């Protein structure tokens, strides 16, 4: 019996609250806190790309490490509510892990920590887990500490595909935690009743007028835009203002004619389960956890692949301990346990082989072991320049009604 099955045993009513990116819209509360924090930060200017504040490494004197990660992104023992892998790390190294599931939203987390980062004050965290585009912002602004790779010998297990990323060539500052897909998800029964088929293979179907008012898309720009870009024949890994504008214009027309019901971001899975919507742009692991009645695929024109990265924030007080923890999770055996539980793709070489050994049936699971054909349709997201970021975010905010 695998842990994956255990996850699906959770009653349907509470499961929607329990996936990686969604815990009861906690972002909204956090948002209020961030507004308060932001008020205090008035007038501060950041010297962009300034060297990160010299941080004191207390790893020797204080045997602990603090990690901020997305909710439900770490195997949990259902009975004791403990994290067996973190306990194993403590047993091996004597370093206690304080694991906080407070990373609910890339923008919100960054907005909350920014005033501290600007001042060079410690965040009280030694590892944070931003998605690609946000990792880009942390690194670009000098808010990440360079990893001492001699403390991470297991870095040799990093899969070739993740070694060179545009925002961090040579992986000097960050290492991937898990990867997943952004694509189309749907309610099979309702789709059959409306479109006469129980799979969606293209964006044309997603925007079929029969689905009017029955679809929601993700509220994070770099989740939704790449799907539209590639569908319009543009390259989502390399696009400029005109291509972006074309995608925005199309989405605007679909907002105006009522095709898109909402930009939900977090709670689309609940909406799918409750029958409020038929199809969504969503994340692979979420749909995987919803079970048999729901489908997930990348459209023919392509979807995107996201990677969540571990990095050590400026001002971290236990840098060496953090590196040791990262090293621990780059052990293929440990990585296999994590991937099996969270249903996302492990960036660690050898994890796949370990998983096959323990449960050969898992090889069928496209979400953990994507086929080459599926990977060919998955683009990684383009890191935006500061100028693009400011301009695109503003256009995006207008589109989604803010």
């Amino acid at each position, binding site marked *: 019996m695998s842990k994956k099955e255990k996850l699906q045993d959770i009653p349907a009513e509470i499961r929607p609250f329990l996936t990686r990116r969604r815990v009861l*819209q906690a972002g*909204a509360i956090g948002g209020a806190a961030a507004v308060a924090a*932001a008020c205090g930060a*008035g*007038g501060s200017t950041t010297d962009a790309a300034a060297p990160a504040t010299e941080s004191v490494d207390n790893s020797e004197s204080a045997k602990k490490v603090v990690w901020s990660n997305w909710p439900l992104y770490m195997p949990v023992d259902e009975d004791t509510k403990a994290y067996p892998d973190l306990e194993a790390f403590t047993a091996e190294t004597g370093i206690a892990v304080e694991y906080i599931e407070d990373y609910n939203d890339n*923008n919100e987390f960054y*907005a909350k920590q920014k005033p501290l980062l600007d001042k060079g004050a410690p965040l009280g965290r030694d590892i944070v887990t931003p998605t690609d585009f946000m990792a880009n912002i942390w690194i670009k602004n000098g808010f990440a500490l360079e990893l001492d790779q001699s403390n991470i010998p297991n870095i040799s297990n990093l899969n070739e595909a993740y070694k060179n990323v545009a925002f961090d060539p040579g992986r000097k500052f960050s290492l991937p935690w898990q990867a997943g897909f952004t694509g189309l998800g749907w309610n099979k029964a309702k789709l059959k009743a409306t479109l006469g088929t129980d799979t969606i293979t293209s964006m044309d179907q997603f925007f079929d007028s029969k689905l009017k008012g029955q679809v929601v898309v993700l509220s994070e720009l770099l989740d939704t835009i790449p799907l539209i870009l590639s569908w319009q024949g543009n390259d989502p890994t390399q696009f400029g203002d005109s291509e972006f504008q074309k995608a925005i214009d199309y989405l605007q027309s679909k907002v105006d004619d009522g095709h898109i019901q*909402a930009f939900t971001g977090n709670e689309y899975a609940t909406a799918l389960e409750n029958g409020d919507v038929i199809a969504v742009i969503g994340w692979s692991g979420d749909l995987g956890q919803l079970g048999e009645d729901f489908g997930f695929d990348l459209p023919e024109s392509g979807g995107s692949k996201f990677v969540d990265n571990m990095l050590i924030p400026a001002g971290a007080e236990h840098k060496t301990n953090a590196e040791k923890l990262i090293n621990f999770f780059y052990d293929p055996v440990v990585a296999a346990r994590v991937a099996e539980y969270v249903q996302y793709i492990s960036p660690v070489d050898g994890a796949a082989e370990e998983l096959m050994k323990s449960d050969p049936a898992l090889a069928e699971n496209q979400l953990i072991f994507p086929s080459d054909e599926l990977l060919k349709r998955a683009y990684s997201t383009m890191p935006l320049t*500061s100028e693009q970021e400011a301009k695109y975010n503003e256009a995006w905010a207008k589109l*989604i009604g803010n």
Partner: protein
Amino acid sequence: MSIAQESIITKPTRRRIKRTPYLLILPGIGWLFLFFIFPLSTLFATSLQKPAGISPDDGFLPAFKVSNYSSALVEYYPQFFRGFLYSGIATVICLLLAYPIAYYMAFRARKYRNLMLVLIVAPFFASFLLRTNAWKTILSGDGIVVGFLNSFNLLPQDRILNTSLAVVAGLTYNFLPFMILPLYTSLEKIDPRLIEAAGDLYSPPSQRFWKVVWPLSIPGVISGTLLTFIPASGDYINAELLGSIKDKMIGNVIQSQFIDLRDYPTASALSFTFMAIILVMIYLYIRRAGTDDLV
């Protein structure tokens, strides 16, 4: 001579009496200064800043950029309008729902009065977010409410969730207790003998209400509407969770400016404009309602 002596003796005592109240409000003043005046002035300073570079991460420089206000208003007046409209409607519905409840509690409930009070306050034991999220399930497409209303073809869009109806309903639900409680306190203070006296003077029930009860409950009506309207107009949770793209209120814009765009000057300018509008509205309202004891 004796008068002069007397004044010398009484002086210190009088001075001490005068000083005590000031000393007593000192902690309150200090609190207000630290947690209200100071953040408010920082916010005001932020609202006039100009960007230091292209990206919000480059930071902002102190400046006197008044155009932050005009551009924010031009850009977001629909959300301002919508925020006040939705919260205004919700306030009126709250008043209509709350008055009979408060009236019943004050004059008829007798031994059930405390039970009713507990029931009204009970929702506060669950988190605001959790309760609003629960409404998503209640109003969902496969839920009973939508099924029932749809069977009578009462829903123009075949759904409630992600419509303005859901936002107003959510606001009404969430702020109803803030209307009931002040109404109840002011109704409860009315001496029932006044109503009896009106009856003795051959006043019919409707006249008894409009001539006696209603005027005496005005302070409760005013504080109830203010307690409902002010937080409701700044609320963003209801519009975020229950509304569609076209139902966003000013709170959503401010939240997104702070968190997603990190455009602190625009967000601060919006916050300040919002506060100013609210202040003017309240001033006019209280002037018109013509009372200065808000109990």
